[in-house]
């Protein structure tokens, strides 16, 4: 790939992520594919795997996956498996699935029933954050560690793990710094650009990703602001991994300023504590700190309290990033997010006092255009 810098480089890696990963592989790197934000990347980086986030492709018609999966399941993971069956992930040396939601779990099992990799582990993630659950999750990570050590012949020593933790904490910190810049009105970086950056670093070795992030921070701070003031939008819900989507939203009259999604703040929100028990810290951060509807939190004494417990962080997002509206993104057939639609709407509309647009979408660029009217109407309503 060319020698572009900063945002331009991020945009390029985003656009050619597969090619980029294959080039890394040709340079002799080992590539580990992983599902969702619950797989501790530190453990992969500790044996010099380049962790690559498994993504779908909204541009690609889902065909091959239909042999293995029914049409009623989450379109995102259907798309991921479809790509895999078409050979687009055949460069992987290792594969890490996770029981983040049922869809993810079943797909990773189906996946590995047909495609075999040198190293393979599925993490069962408990659904609560009770102390025994964190202990259980730590046991799972222990088992994952043993599997990796056995398959790669390398030891994941506490030192290597600690170094990897530092590296990723750095990365998360840099991303948060970038997010903080978006508090300005108008934001100096668009939602589309941010998405390109995040996807790019999810394909890069962490050191390189960090270097690129630093470069980008400088660039964004120093370039003239060209964006117009527009209603400010917080996106929450299912992940968005394609810029056609963010473009559509921003073209319809919004500035996307903050998100609560898996390719976004959920992946970069919290650091891993540096302690003498790295696995324990990892378990804590990944199970407890990531806030995702797939994890059950105690419901508390009454409903208002429960809602504030569960969604309070979103209120802070709205306040800190001065969001004028919330887009609740639901990929069709997503259960964890689907069950929360009424609660979230109620929370934002009645308790935080900010309007919400909820859309169930099909994870396909072909069906994006009809959504334009909805975003436009939503923007017009906020003005």
């Amino acid at each position, binding site marked *: 790939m060319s020698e572009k810098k900063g945002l331009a480089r991020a945009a390029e890696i985003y656009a050619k992520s597969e090619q980029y990963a294959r080039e890394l592989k040709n340079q002799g790197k080992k590539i580990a594919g992983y599902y969702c934000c619950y797989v501790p990347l530190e453990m992969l980086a500790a044996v010099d795997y380049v962790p690559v986030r498994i993504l779908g492709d909204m541009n690609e*018609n*889902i*065909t*091959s*996956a*239909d*042999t293995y999966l029914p049409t009623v399941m989450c379109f995102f993971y259907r798309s991921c498996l479809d790509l895999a069956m078409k050979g687009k992930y055949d460069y992987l040396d290792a594969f890490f699935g996770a029981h983040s939601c049922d869809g993810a779990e079943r797909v990773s099992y189906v996946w590995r029933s047909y495609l075999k990799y040198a190293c393979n582990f599925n993490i069962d993630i408990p659904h609560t954050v009770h102390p025994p659950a964190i202990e259980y999750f730590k046991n799972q990570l222990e088992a994952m560690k043993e599997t990796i050590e056995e398959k790669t012949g390398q030891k994941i020593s506490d030192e290597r793990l600690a170094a990897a933790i530092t590296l990723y904490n750095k990365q998360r910190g840099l991303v948060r710094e970038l997010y903080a810049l978006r508090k300005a009105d108008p934001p100096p970086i668009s939602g589309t650009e941010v998405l390109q950056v995040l996807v790019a670093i999810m394909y890069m070795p962490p050191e390189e990703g960090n270097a690129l992030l630093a470069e980008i921070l400088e660039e964004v701070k120093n370039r003239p602001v060209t964006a117009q003031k527009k209603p400010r939008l917080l996106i929450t819900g299912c992940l968005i991994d394609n810029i056609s989507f963010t473009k559509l939203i921003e073209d319809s009259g919004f500035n996307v300023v903050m998100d609560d999604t898996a390719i976004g703040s959920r992946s970069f929100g919290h650091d891993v504590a540096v302690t003498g028990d790295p696995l324990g810290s990892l378990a804590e951060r990944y199970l407890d700190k990531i806030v995702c509807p797939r994890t059950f939190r105690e419901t508390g004494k009454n409903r208002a309290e429960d809602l504030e417990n569960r969604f309070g962080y979103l209120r802070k997002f709205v306040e800190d990033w001065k969001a004028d509206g919330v887009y609740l993104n639901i990929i069709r057939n997503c259960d964890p997010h689907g069950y929360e639609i009424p609660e979230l709407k109620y929370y934002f509309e009645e308790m935080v006092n900010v309007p919400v647009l909820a859309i169930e979408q099909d994870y396909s660029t*072909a*069906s*994006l*255009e*009809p959504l334009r009217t909805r975003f436009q109407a939503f923007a017009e309503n906020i003005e």
Partner: protein
Amino acid sequence: MFYRAGLDIGSSLAKAVILKDDEIMAYGIAPISGNFSRAADQVMQETLEKSGLRLEQLDIIGGTGLGASFIPYRFVKNTEVSCQSRGVHYLLPTARIVIEIGYQASRVIKITENGKVADCVVNDRCAAGSGRILQVISKVLQVPLTELGNMSLKSTNPVRFTTGCSVFAETEAISRIAEGAKVEDIIAGLHQAISLKISGMLEKIKLDGECAITGGGGKDAGLVKMLEKTLQKEMLLPAEPLISGAIGAVLMATEKTQEFEAAAKQEE
């Protein structure tokens, strides 16, 4: 001499075929035009005429299709999937996969070496991927159905449709034209949309062995080419793709009659 007839009263066309022993003597095709029994009768009379037979000379009549229950004679009724598999097997014995593209429904059938159904995928709730859109678009663009294929083959840049719905595809095609898209690209785009839908169905049963196209879609050279391109496989094509169902209806009816007679004999 053994005369048998099969009728396939589909959703847009009525098809009839008469076999003399195991040879096709004559066949006919007539539009339904909103009246199933009239179409059935018309196509039957036409075919009888061609074969020089009278109705009474027929030993067995088999029927199938959406409107089969309107066939105004005594006949043996059969399911469409089985009829297609028998019919295609009769015409193209090496085929193991049948892609049938009809007016409202498309089907993919896997057949055994003796023409029985080994598996099938049917698109029966949503008409996306069926042949109806071709008929509609030919009317809208004033391109005869028979010309669609040639037009499509000229296209270099098929339009990508954003809708799957076979009704909205019409509206979308029209607005694409308004935006300046070429007619051949629109038609090729529709062919592509149908092909993708079919290839999705095929994924469910795996494409191995020779593959035949039948039903009205088989008449459309552009669609056939596009399917070959999408599936990366050459297709077998019956000389007359419309009548395989009717042939199957004869064969199935014969099977059933024989079974019935055998059972009757046993009881005696």
